[in-house]
Structures are given as C-alpha cells and as structure tokens.
C-alpha cells in the first residue's frame, strides 16, 4: 500500500534493490546446493575408490581362482592319504608270531607241537589251530587253561574227542585271538 505513495524514481530504486537481493539469495542457494553436492560426492568417490580397489584385488584373486585346480589336486591327495591310512588301520593285527611265542611259553614239556595254523581271511573269523600230542589228559587240560588265562584269546576250544585216549593224546586246539582293540580295553 505504501508502495503507491512512492515516486517513480523511488519505485525503480526499490525494485532494483529487490532484484539485486533476489539474485544474491539465488546465488547463495545455488552455492549451498553445489557445496551439498560436492559433500555428497565425497562418499561416492570413496565408494568408487573402494570399488576400484576391490576390482584390482579381484583381478589378483583370479590367480587364486586359477588355484582351484590346485585345491582339487591337494584335496584328492589328502583323501588318498586318508584312504591309505584307513587301509593301514584295517590291516593292523595282533602279530601272529607274538601269539606263537605266548603259545610256546605256556606249553608244558609234556606236550609236543607238530603244527600251528593261522587264518585271517576277511570272510572268516581269525583263528589259530594248534595240533600236537600231549603225554597225559591233565597236561592237555592244564595247557588249555593256561592259554585261556593269558587273556589273548576270546575263544579256546578243545574238542572233547581229544580226550579219548589216556596217554599220548593227539589234539587240535582252536583259538580265536582277541583283536588289538579288545586286548587294549
């Protein structure tokens, strides 16, 4: 309303002043906008740098990916080694010679051995068969009991027919040795 009382010169001056201030405000706003843009661009640039870094590292990793075949070879070698160890473990057995020594240690002088057989076929039970001649029944029974007492066998079988004769008894003992695991328990 007051604007209508001003002279033309004053109106022109006021409008000019208004436009100058408007331009200043616009320039300020644009400046803030550009500054904000730059500030926002900094993390973007950082992210782009990270991306570039990753891309470079990834290209180095290409060599690792080339090592996939090496990994497979290594895995295969280790698996094969594991199989060999399993085979080794499976083949582990109580040494038959050790058992024979124990058989002899327990044997009284009144018994003569003529044959010792051993069988560890995977389809059958591991067993020893001892053939010989005993002077007396007592000697044979004592020997059988002594073998049972060693704790090396899960079965000691003396067929009753072996006791038919009173003297110079031919005999066949069947022994099932304990496994190493059973002995260690």
């Amino acid at each position: 309303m007051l604007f209508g009382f001003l002279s033309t010169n004053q109106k022109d001056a006021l409008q000019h002043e208004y436009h100058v201030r408007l331009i200043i405000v616009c320039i300020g706003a644009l400046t803030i906008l550009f500054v904000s843009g730059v500030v926002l661009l900094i993390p973007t640039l950082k992210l782009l740098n990270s991306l570039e870094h990753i891309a470079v590292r990834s290209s180095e990793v290409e060599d690792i990916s080339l090592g996939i075949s090496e990994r497979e070879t290594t895995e295969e070698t280790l698996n094969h080694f594991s199989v060999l160890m399993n085979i080794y473990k499976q083949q582990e057995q109580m040494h038959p010679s050790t058992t024979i020594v124990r058989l002899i240690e327990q044997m009284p002088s009144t018994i003569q051995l003529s044959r010792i057989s051993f069988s560890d076929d995977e389809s059958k039970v591991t067993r020893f068969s001892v053939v010989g001649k005993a002077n007396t029944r007592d000697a044979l029974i004592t020997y059988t009991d002594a073998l049972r007492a060693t704790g090396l066998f899960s079965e000691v079988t003396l067929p009753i027919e072996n006791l038919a004769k009173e003297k110079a008894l031919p005999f066949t003992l069947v022994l099932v040795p304990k496994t190493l695991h059973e002995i260690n328990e």
Partner: protein
Amino acid sequence: MSGGVFLIAFVVLVGLIIYIERVADRVAEKQQVFNDYLQQENYLTELKELMRTLDSGRTRIAHQFVETGAEVDYIEVIENLGKDTGVELDVRSVTRDERTLEKKKKYAVLRLGMVAEGSWQEILSFLGSLETAPLALSIESFDMETHTEDTLWSMPLIITIAFDEPIISSE
C-alpha cells in the same frame, strides 16, 4: 525463479542419493564375491599347510604300498626277508586281488603265496620280519608244520600287500 532453483536442487539431490545407493549395492556385491574368494584362498592355504605337515609321513606311508608296475620290487623285498632270516623261500603264486575296506569300497592287493622252510627259530624270525616290515602287509594265513622228528619246519603262507591305488567303488 527461486522455485525453479529449489526444484533443480531437489532433483539433483534425489539423483545423487539414488546414484550413491546403486554404487553401494555394486560395492557390496563385489565385496561378497571378494570375501568368497578370500575364503577359498584361506581354505587352500590351510590345505597346503596340512600337506606340508603330513608330507614326510605321507611319502613314507605311500612307499609302504605297492606301486603299480613295481610289483617285482616288492616280491624281491619279501624274498630278501627270507634270505636275511635264513629260511628257504619259494614264492609260488603272485596274484592281484581285492579286499573290502568298508561297505561298497574295495582296495587292490598284491597276493603272494609262498612256502618257507627252515628251523623253528628261522621260521619264527621270518614271520616276525614280515610283521614288522615297513609295508602295508597283512598275513592272510600260514600253516607251520613239521613232518619229521628233526628240526625242519615247513610253512606255506599267504600274504597281501595293499596297492597304492585309488579305492574301487562297487556301486
């Protein structure tokens, strides 16, 4: 005019935010791929370390298994054990056989049939040397027998030595 400037500023800001989000997604994606690679790398390093640790033992164990094509060497090792312990050793059969490792898995073995003759001590010593030989050897059967009143013992025996070969799957 100031409305126009405000609109431009708004559009630029929104555009920048969208752009940054897309870049961040791409970075996350690349990071994931890179992490996967790193995991693979660590796994490979661990495997190599394990290989290095086991290396000497692995070589030693592998030598105890029959190498395909070198069967004669292993037969000779057994014959030499016979000579060293003083028994007369006659290798009568050499065959390739299979043994069961576990369900549906088998491994190849060199199966030797032989007869050893000697004194009780020599036979027992030969048996002991077979058991303690650095070989993946298993005594399958033997039959020590003396026919005469003298000290000569005869022992037909069958042994197996495992081959250093991949497992046989019977699927």
